């Protein structure tokens, strides 16, 4: 696979949300607005790139039997670092994402890519994979968040579209999350088949 294909596959062929169906918890929980979805996607992408890089660098010195604990420690440290940086420099986003930021540690995407890619490939390729999957995740979350925000709150990225009182609130609640995700997944896979 050439370098550009690694990135593109993370966005299309191996889209973590609509194809791999990983990281569903933050997907449903943080997509109540486009800005939250994008912020969550970017935070996850940052952790993914860094953990992929470090794991691909140390993959040869980690004994096979302790590789999962080792990966988890590395991932958790990066999540803690990202959490502190967010709390210091983007406190508003930090407050609205709340508990979902530390939950990035248990996001299946990160451990999944560590196992499937970073532990078997070189450093540069692992970074590209992190970027690709990260962009795919961010794009999916932003789109789902935008749909739910427009349909549920009558706004987009916080800018009101003037119809806030007439929109079906269900879209910012749990049922709406599942509905939006389901329909977008069908749409994505139909379009991707072409």
């Amino acid at each position: 696979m050439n370098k550009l294909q690694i990135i593109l596959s993370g966005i299309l062929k191996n889209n973590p949300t609509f194809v791999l169906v990983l990281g569903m918890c933050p997907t449903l929980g943080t997509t109540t607005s486009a800005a939250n979805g994008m912020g969550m996607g970017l935070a996850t992408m940052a952790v993914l790139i860094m953990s992929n890089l470090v794991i691909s660098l140390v993959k040869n010195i980690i004994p096979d039997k302790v590789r999962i604990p080792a990966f988890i420690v590395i991932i958790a440290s990066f999540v803690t670092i990202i959490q502190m940086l967010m709390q210091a420099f983007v406190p508003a986003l930090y407050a609205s994402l709340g508990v979902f930021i530390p939950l990035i540690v248990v996001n299946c995407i990160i451990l999944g890519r560590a196992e499937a890619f970073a532990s078997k490939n070189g450093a540069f390729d692992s970074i590209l994979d992190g970027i690709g999957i990260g962009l795919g995740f961010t794009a999916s979350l932003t789109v789902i968040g935008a749909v739910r925000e427009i349909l549920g709150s009558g706004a987009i990225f916080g800018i009101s579209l003037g119809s806030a009182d007439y929109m079906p609130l269900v879209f910012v609640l749990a049922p709406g999350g599942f509905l939006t995700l389901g329909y977008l997944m069908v749409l994505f896979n139909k379009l991707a088949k072409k």
Partner: protein
Amino acid sequence: MKSTLFNMTAVLLGITLVASAGVGVVNMITAEPIAAAEQAAKTEALTRVLPQFDTTEATTKTIDEMLITVYTASQSGQTVGYAVETMSKNGFGGPISLMVGFTPEGEVVNVNVLKQTETPGLGTKMADEGNSLLSSVKGQKLTEKKLVNGMLAVKKDGGDIDALTAATISSRAYVDAINRAWMAYKSVVDGVAPSAVSGATKQVPANEPEAQKGGKNE
């Protein structure tokens, strides 16, 4: 690397040492910006409910086993207002916390909702501009409202606070928090010890003999 006991232990030790060092370094770098951001948020919360001020002094009161903080705000040495950070445990979706601003004469300047987890579209309206709860108290002296047992209450409970449509529990929690703020404010201004705030109408489970269903106990 082979998975011998020595290798596994050594590698895990090494990784955790490096990881904790990394986290420690970032902690040192971000400690100050985090403190500054929290301070800025606090100042912003106070500015929203008070007239112009340049210094504040915080006093903490304990009412109904909750810590209520009263910020006495002064401008050039003169007291210009009191901001009370108050809370209620009776929100529909959990505790709510408000910042209530009073003038020295007892008039409510503004109420800002700090934290709430109420039902979207119903209880969350308490944080909206010009909602019925806010307009029932903003710019008014609480002593001039219709009081039930000396406390504010929603219309359903005999008072004259306009509750939110279809969100009675959230509205009652809001009023409960304001009552607590009023109690704390009075105790700072008059120097009297605060008594319990009645008006907790949430059901308590039968097997909690200690729980009070509201009612003054002092």
